[in-house]
């Protein structure tokens, strides 16, 4: 399992900019209906079971890091993620405020209060980024 986690970290996640990008990536490997993680590359190198366990463990680790990260870091990371997402900033902020996609990125067995803390921090970070965005044309 350790080897699978290291592989995931050094090959796939290392290319991503920050924990928010990593959280979204790992959450996207999880089946909406079963909650099982799937990663072809990892399954090919290890076994399906090991790949799933490594993804689940990493998911928890990254989520925990984000829950305990200062709000200032969340704002910076979200800004960086938005920058690298390829979407227009205004569209990104509008969509994230409207449908709150970050709520489905949390590990299934997380503490409900930790989930709420994370969602609240992202919500406030989005509001700060939106204010900055609105100030740009005037400056």
């Amino acid at each position, binding site marked *: 399992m350790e080897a699978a986690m290291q592989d995931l970290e050094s090959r796939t996640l290392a290319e991503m900019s920050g924990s928010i990008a990593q959280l979204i990536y790992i959450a996207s490997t999880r089946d909406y209906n079963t909650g099982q993680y799937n990663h072809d590359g990892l399954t090919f190198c290890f076994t399906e079971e090991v790949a799933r366990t490594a993804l689940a463990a990493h998911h928890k680790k990254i989520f925990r890091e984000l829950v305990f990260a200062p709000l*200032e870091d969340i704002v910076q990371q979200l800004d960086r993620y938005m920058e690298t997402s390829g979407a227009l900033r205004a569209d990104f902020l509008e969509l994230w405020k409207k449908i709150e996609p970050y709520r489905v990125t949390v590990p299934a067995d997380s503490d409900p*209060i930790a989930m709420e803390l994370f969602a609240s*921090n992202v*919500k*406030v970070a989005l509001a700060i980024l939106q*204010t900055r965005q609105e100030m740009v044309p005037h400056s």
Partner: protein
Amino acid sequence: MGEFLFFLLIGLGSLSLVLLWAGRSAGPSIDGRRLSEVREAFTVIELELPSGALGERIFASHDWDFISANASREIQRTFLQERKSLAMSWLRQTRTNVGRVMEFHRKAVRGCVRLNPSLELRLALNYIVFLLTYEVLCALILLRGPFWVRELVRYTSGIADQMSYLSGHILVGMDPTVLGRIKSRWYNNPVAS
């Protein structure tokens, strides 16, 4: 008004004395390794206390320092409202779970384990202090917000840990037959008396 102040002062004075006394006679110091064993034993019977680290995170003031310097009044208001609600949720969850620990101790453990009067006394005292500080904390959070009560939160969380330790340490290393009996009694009748 004068009468109200008089009783308020007496109340606060008594509370301070009880806190001071409880702090000094809180019993054996908690061994970190032993506490995690106790937490593990409680997890098996679904009696987890909310994470103290999460409490620390919610009540930490660095986020407020950042927000008050970098965000509009409206965002500040939203942030304070959300953090206040989270703080109350964490506190209520701690209160509920401490109550369950006491309930567990009263029902499941008492029937199977020989009582230790000094432990029972300490547990009862800690529970009273916990309930008092819980009420004070709720009032302070509602009045002033969550960022000015960190020390009291740490203290309350410490009492919760102490209670969990006092009640749960008898589970660690217990004869598996007795432990099995305690578990089944708890699972079969966790709420009703």
